[in-house]
């Protein structure tokens, strides 16, 4: 890999719109930054704010949440629930000093492969400019033990 900083972005993509937009971008051979690593969820409404915190704590430099456009959610209104949680989460992240561009929410329909690819490129550039997040150092001042909440074992 080249010398420049390559951010790692975790992408939570909804099964019906944005995961398919990413599929379409691939099928159409649209080249974009390989920095976004997608995780499929059925709906952006499934994205628990803890997922975002978990990703940032575990080394991601940014998190992308993508869902269907408002009014087009496969599950009627899950994306609106995602939006509400996103606003609250952003308020919290702001207090922790996490920069605005690191966690983004966007709407991409199944036909918007190019749009999704462009947004991933843009986000990669934005986070590259910010540099690594380094949660343990920058957010918790090096006291990594605070974040040591183990993943709950299966019930």
């Amino acid at each position, binding site marked *: *890999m080249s010398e420049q900083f390559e951010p*790692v972005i*975790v992408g939570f993509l909804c099964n*019906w719109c944005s*995961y*398919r937009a*990413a*599929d*379409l*971008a*691939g*099928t*159409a*051979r649209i*080249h*974009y930054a*390989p*920095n976004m*690593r*997608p*995780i*499929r*969820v*059925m*709906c952006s*409404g*499934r*994205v*628990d704010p*803890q*997922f975002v915190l*978990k*990703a940032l704590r*575990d*080394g*991601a430099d940014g998190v992308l949440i993508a869902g269907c*456009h408002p009014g*087009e959610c*496969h*599950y*009627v*209104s*899950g994306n609106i*629930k995602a939006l509400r*949680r996103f606003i609250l989460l952003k308020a919290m992240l702001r207090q922790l000093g996490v920069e605005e561009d690191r966690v983004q929410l966007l709407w991409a*329909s*199944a*036909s918007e*492969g*190019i749009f999704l*690819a462009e947004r991933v490129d843009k986000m990669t550039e934005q986070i590259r400019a910010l540099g690594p997040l380094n949660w*343990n150092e920058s957010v918790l001042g090096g006291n*990594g*033990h605070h974040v*040591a909440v*183990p*993943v*709950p074992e*299966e*019930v």
Partner: protein
Amino acid sequence: MSEEKIGVYICHCGTNIAKVVDVEDVAEWAGNQPNVEVSREYKFMCSSLGQDLIEEDIKEKGLTRIVVSSCSPHMHEKTFRTACERGGLNPFLVEMANIREHNSWTTDDKVAATQKAKALTNAAIERVVHHQPLEQLPVEINPNTLVVGGGIAGITAALELANGGRHVYLVEREPSIGGHMAQLDKTFPTLDCSACILTPKMVDVGQHPNITLLTWSEVEKVDGFIGNFTVNIRKKARYVNEEHCTGCGICIEKCPFNVVDDIFEAGMGDRKVIYRPFPQAVPKYPVIDKENCVYFQKGKCKACEKFCPTEPNSIEFDQEDEILTVDVGNIILATGFQLFDSTNIPQYGYGRLQNVFTGIEFERMVNASGPTDGKIVLRDKKTAPKSVAIIHCVGSRDENYHKYCSKICCMYSLKFAHLVHERIPDAEVYNCYIDMRTPGKGYEEFYNRLLEEGTHFIRGKVAEVTNAARKPEEEGKLIVQVEDTLIGRQRRVPVDMVILSPAMEAQPDSKEISQLFKMGCDFDGFFTERHPKLDPVATMTDGILIAGACQGPKDVPDSVAQGAAAAARVAGLINLGTVMMEPVRASIHQEECSGCRICNNMCPYNAIVFHADRKVSEVITALCQGCGTCVAACPSGIISGAHFTNDQLFSQIEGILWDVRPEKELVSA
């Protein structure tokens, strides 16, 4: 550490993955990950040999979990689930990592792609440990079907299902079914009279006891899933009572006002304000064009009502739009196409030079029931042209407009040439084409026939159509400026009439339609099929099928074939009676629920009930659609979303960050 034994399979997909991702490296690396019992790479995992690998490994090595790193799960998840099942494993114990659509096809950077492939594969490895065996849920299929669009594809689909004894709702936004085919005079290459072959089918639709025909109607809202869709249809006010009207047409005759018919006659002819698009329209009931009706605009006239002979009177000026709600199991979209607007290419002069016509205008002109009674004449409506130039590829195969080949234009341009020869035997006809594309039964033979009929073929893309004469013989003519690439020189061809052959393009509102029905459309606006080769009539959304030119440019036989194919697919599902649904459903751990009721209002399907006596909430599985919004909202974290549990997703997040994750000791300290 878990007791699970995971098999990891990295697919080359020929070279689709392997040319960018170092598959050997990924497979070797995966083999060293915790719980991984066996790791292999193979040319095509979806082939039967690839699937056999999985099946045999399950049996011989006692694998309990499977990870396949290959294409999108939307492509082959079912394939690998079935392979697991054959090997004796529950199909939900497999997880796919999408290293093709989301990785190898999106970059040339081999190092980054290999790293990303490892991340996605590792995410699947760590996730799959937490998978639980699940059983699919059977869902009953409502035997009724909605067909949207009453062109030849929709008509065919509706008739196939109705003839098989199934009920169909056929929705058409225009006042009559028939679509573009009803506008045509002849169909290539057989030169069948279009109306003669189409109208019997339209009549069948109109009279079929199993078809509810809803013209002048549009779908407004679609809810539900395969097997159980609820659809709201707006039946626009016709201002004519369909029960009383006999279709006698006296109102049309007596209506004193004419307007230009931009739709059916493509602006070439007039229609009355109360009208049927064409005499053989189905249904036969007319429609009042409210925008142009003098009664609606100025409050006076009512000629139609005055002369209506039915008892009670069929004209109802106070009719209002109706919203109908229908329940259907499947939906076939056959919403068709529109023609490229030729004014977008000003150098061809359409709209500026009066004797430049579009293909559809010419179709109406040569139609015996059209505005000129089938006579080919210039805009003055009397002079027959002595020379005609037909320009292919208007708006298609053009970087500035549509890159795609519109497929039917060569053939209909040849048909135009033939019709000119037939109606005006001494006329000279010039076809200016880029390449002559005539693939189809009897199509090349039709081209040969035109060569013998004396058409002049000029291979070259037309630069310009102008009326600026340079020589005396060009005076008063349209001059087609074209490079004849076969003789290698520029030509100026003076003609009386120019016909443009515009491309088929997606309906202007195809994107909205695709969003309404929650399926995809491509960059050109054509609907996206489930698989371009092997599943051209299904979409990524179960229960929504596509047929005809809404999927891509298509001629009549292809549209008919797709309409019938979509109907056959639906008929098969109805015969089965049930479809197996993903068991992705939420459930609330009853002992731990605090009864806070936060989840109750989250659910868009009202699938969560609160038991006041026990003070706990419960998910009604039959209503739950599995979005997981309640799972994310539960403050106690005790709602479990099957196949997307917190454990599974947290592990997937950890796994996907394998290379950047802080030291394990720190995290688990």
